[in-house]
């Protein structure tokens, strides 16, 4: 899972639409992760196709996305992986 995917899934724990997602990712990452439009579009397209997120509302002007159960599961697995990496790093004295 790429960093962009992770933060978008994290941000979509609350349903949101594309433009606000870009800002939500910045907020959640405390300004560290800046989401370019190409990255956002690519990730959203791919995750909808993979079933990790879903369009819950489309009023013709903008689409609202939300995370699916599969997306939550993927997020949890990635969180566990990252947690394990940090734990191992601390044990190694990093």
């Amino acid at each position: 899972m790429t960093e962009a995917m992770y933060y978008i899934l994290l941000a979509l724990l609350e349903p949101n639409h594309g433009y606000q997602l870009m800002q939500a990712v910045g907020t959640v990452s405390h300004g560290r992760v800046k989401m370019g439009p190409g990255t956002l579009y690519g990730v959203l397209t791919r995750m909808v196709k993979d079933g990790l997120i879903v369009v819950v509302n489309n009023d013709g002007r903008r689409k609202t996305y939300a995370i699916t159960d599969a997306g939550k599961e993927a997020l949890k697995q990635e969180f566990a992986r990252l947690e394990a990496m940090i734990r191992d790093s601390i044990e190694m004295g990093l």
Partner: protein
Amino acid sequence: MKRKDGLVKGHFPAISAELWKNERYLEKQAEQGLFLKDRWEDNLLFERGTPRKMKYRIDIHSGLLDEETKAWYAEAGWDWVMWFNDYQIFSAPAERETTELHTDPAELEVLMRKSLKKEQRRAMRNMAFYAVAFAVFLLSLIVYLQRGVFLALADGTVVNICTTIVVVGCIGNCRGMWGHWKKYQEIQNRLREGIFPTAEEKEEAVEQKEGSFLRKAVSVAVFVLLAGEMVSSCSEQHISMETDFSAYPVVTAAEVTDLTGYTQSDLSFCNVGGRGLAKGKVKMRDIWETEAGEECVFYSVYYEAFSAGFAKGIAGDLCDFANGYYKKGLAATAEQRQDSRFDGLFLTETDFHTATAYLGERVLQISWNGATEKEAVLAKMAAILGNETEQNWSGIGEKKEGGSRGILIEVTEVEENGDT
């Protein structure tokens, strides 16, 4: 670059994976006052304007973007220009503050690898197309070889030209597609290793490649020529002519009575006047009428001949097979049948053809050589038959129906005392 409808035509100099090269190309165009406006097939169309510094970015997404998505890019400072194949093109004035389209290198790599795989599949499809075209042409050539005629110069000039163009076109295009396919594979491997593109590659000068449209046009023309040639050869039937006719049965008047039903099927005629014809297909049916009102039907067949050093091509020389007398139920004399002067096939020069019909005890011959002057034809026929003093050539008939040109001549034997 060429002009089309007031717009200037151009095309990307680099393969699609080298996005930065194509972006720089667009920026250089803008510095020269050419701004990307539209597309025409695989070409870009630029409109003229005031030169200025612009930034261009190319993103890897196919299809038309919806307005919401375009707004995301606009929010990042980029104006959507158009989409081109699997790519979206954006621009912004150089001085405008913008966010780069891709801020996650890993995501960009995923997109690029997907795009490269698609390009590879496209290259494979193109290669398969040219390979099939080449295979079809080879098959056609093998058929020619089996018939014993291989790139005959006299009538096969078109075949020679087709061969050269098809070989060069198909092989050239396959090589080009294979080159692309290998490059895409190499880039994918380097993406995986994180070494694409290198800093040097990013600084490489952009060069405009010319001629791809011309190459495509030549390729299409080659394939059309090939297809036309194949259709033409499939629609013809050929007969093999051998010098040894002893294996062929003698066809008598009783056996061949009516050829009207044979216009599209195989025919076998042999040993007419000592010479023979093998299987052929009737191509034309000419009906001639003598001055006396006698009708004579000549059937034309396409053939290939190996004998006497004649060079024959596919469309070849026509061999007229005279059969009108059979149709009428008349019979030639045994002597006339054995007389080699009255052959069904009579070719001694590639531009001079004759055919013979037996009408009772009279012999009719049709001859043509492009020009149809009676005196010239009579003189040639006399020279061919080698019997100027014994033959009296007279009479002329008119074509009633059919396609070949020529003269209908009646040959009458002259008695020793000079009377007919």
